[in-house]
């Protein structure tokens, strides 16, 4: 157990160092950082001074080490476009993205798991077939189009829900929240539904497939033979056993929700990290892009790490497997 965690941890560190290296290489080699920081009337001498002061003349590995150390402390330099420290921008935008992602994830789970169970138990029901066809449609409509359609229906035709921004937010000092005001909550509805819909279809299809798989196994037949109530078999035997992979994949999906938030935030002009990132890509604001990469990379590696350990704890079969194949 300890050695497994240590191995995973070491791997996570290596991944983070690689992500950091890519981010640093972007920062250092895409365009000249000095040109991006100063105006045109800066003399060559001043440029050289700045270059020396920022340590851009140091060897590559020294620069990288400095970049990594700064990144660990949350320091990513100045944004070329906003002319402010990147860390400030990120801290300012983070609550918006996290609140949106949280609601999106909860929605996807709360609707996706029951829908998956239902379609697995009533395989040939009319409603099940309807849900399954609906899910294929859900996979085929790009996130941004779902957003546009929702905006058209609820914002333009019916005019019942706000279609951009976060509404009124309450500043808690270190965190701004839209949970506490009516307009904040209303503003959350469309973006979070947009964000949840794609994940919802994935979770639902996964739960359905896993349930069907488990329902075919011998121990379910045996439980039936013992005369246990059907309801009890479905929920305490089948569902419990099909949730293991669901937990893992949902964990991994949490990460991709944050990535898909880029799209949702752009459609709804939601002032989160995703919108910041897309603006950075458009304006070639490399420090912001690099910082976003590192932050998202960290979130992903962290989630992967937790999920790996959870998987290991939940499923005893894996322990023997892993020991054997030396993963």
């Amino acid at each position, binding site marked *: 157990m300890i050695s497994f965690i240590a191995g995973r941890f070491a791997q996570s560190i290596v*991944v983070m160092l690689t992500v950091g290296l890519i981010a640093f290489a972007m920062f250092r080699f895409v365009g000249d950082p000095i040109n991006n920081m100063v105006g045109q009337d800066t003399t060559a001498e001043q440029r050289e001074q700045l270059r020396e002061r920022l340590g851009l003349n140091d060897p590559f590995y020294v620069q990288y080490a400095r970049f990594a150390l700064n990144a660990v402390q949350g320091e990513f330099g100045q944004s070329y476009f906003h002319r402010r420290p990147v860390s400030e921008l990120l801290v300012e935008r983070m609550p918006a993205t996290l609140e949106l992602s949280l609601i999106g994830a909860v929605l996807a789970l709360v609707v996706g798991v029951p829908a998956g169970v239902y379609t697995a138990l009533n395989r040939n029901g009319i409603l099940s077939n309807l849900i399954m066809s609906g899910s*294929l449609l859900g996979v085929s409509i790009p996130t941004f189009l779902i957003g*546009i359609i929702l905006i058209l229906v609820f914002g333009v035709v019916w005019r019942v829900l706000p279609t951009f921004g976060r509404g009124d937010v309450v500043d808690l000092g270190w965190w701004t929240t839209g949970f506490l005001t009516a307009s904040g909550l209303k503003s959350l509805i469309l973006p979070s539904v947009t964000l949840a819909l794609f994940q919802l279809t994935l979770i639902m299809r996964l739960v359905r497939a896993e349930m069907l798989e488990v329902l075919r196994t011998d121990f379910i037949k045996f439980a039936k033979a013992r005369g246990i109530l059907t309801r009890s078999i479905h929920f305490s035997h089948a569902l419990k056993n099909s949730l293991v992979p669901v937990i893992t994949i949902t964990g991994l999906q949490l990460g991709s929700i944050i990535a*898909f938030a*880029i*799209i949702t935030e752009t459609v709804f002009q939601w002032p989160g990290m995703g919108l910041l990132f897309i603006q950075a890509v*458009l304006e070639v604001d490399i420090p912001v892009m690099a910082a976003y990469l590192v932050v998202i990379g960290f979130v992903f590696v962290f989630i992967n790490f937790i999920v790996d350990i959870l998987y290991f704890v939940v499923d005893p079969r894996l322990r023997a497997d892993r020991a054997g194949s030396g993963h």
Partner: protein
Amino acid sequence: MTLGVPGPTDMNSKSNQTYEVAAKERTGLADVLRRFFDSDLWFSFRHSPVAIISMAVSILIVFSAIFAHWIAPTNPFDLAQIDLLDSEIPPVWLPDGDSRFLLGTDDQGRDIFSTILYGSRVSLLVGFASVVFAMAIGIPLGLISGYYGGYVDAVIMRIADVQLSFPAILIAFLIDGVARGVLPRAVHDEMALYVLVFAIGISGWVQYARTVRGSTMVEKNKEYVQAARVIGIRRGTILVRHILPNVLGPVLVIATIHLALAIITEATLSFLGVGVPVTSPSLGTLIRVGYDFLFSGVWWITIMPGVALIILVLAINMVGDWLRDALNPKLR
């Protein structure tokens, strides 16, 4: 190909026979077609209305995109053919519709049906090219990884693992962002299609590599591969001529679904403004341009290309779904 095993007595005649069969199979297109129409795949296709309809829709869209020049009522990029007075006309079935413009016109008076035809050409082109690019990277790496194993395998698969833990669309964003930084703006617009294909292709190779690796590891221990190895065929030849054809089945399924995903990714990037420029718009670019008019009630400029995109992706996804079930031996 049926390779007859030569018996001890009539070795000459038997092997002559097999040569004949082989020659026949290689030359006759009719034979190839007959074998296809005899196959399980064709049988399954004929008996699945969903597959037939979705395939027909896909083919229809692909053809109308290829022949957009002839099919489109107007050339939306020829300034002589568009008239600002025709701008923002709704689709024909609405009160103010004009019979010349089936799906209405955009803010510049361009026929939306025509722009959709031209746009789906760009979308399909980028989609197909990205899939081919991803295959060109993923399949060889998967073959090498599965066949050689050991150190090479570990390195390739570790890279794949790391990449797989990031969503494809994020990787595409980053590559596009870096390309914007490296290339000057004028050059970038010109290169936008190549950058997109590269970004979407790179973000999708892992699926192919993993699948091909898995099948290769199974195939490489089969007798025909051992036989080929024993008679001294070079490893590269074994990989390409013997193993590759036998691992392509699952690749076909992935490629179909990846095509739908690539088209979605392209549309998303273009919608966010980091994809195809407005000079040769794809469906995603059209949606983006029309999005500005959504709030003024002129919804068709953005919704029509959107519906076209959904139909296209849905049709491809349904073909992919059918193909996956048809090629899955468990479900037969």
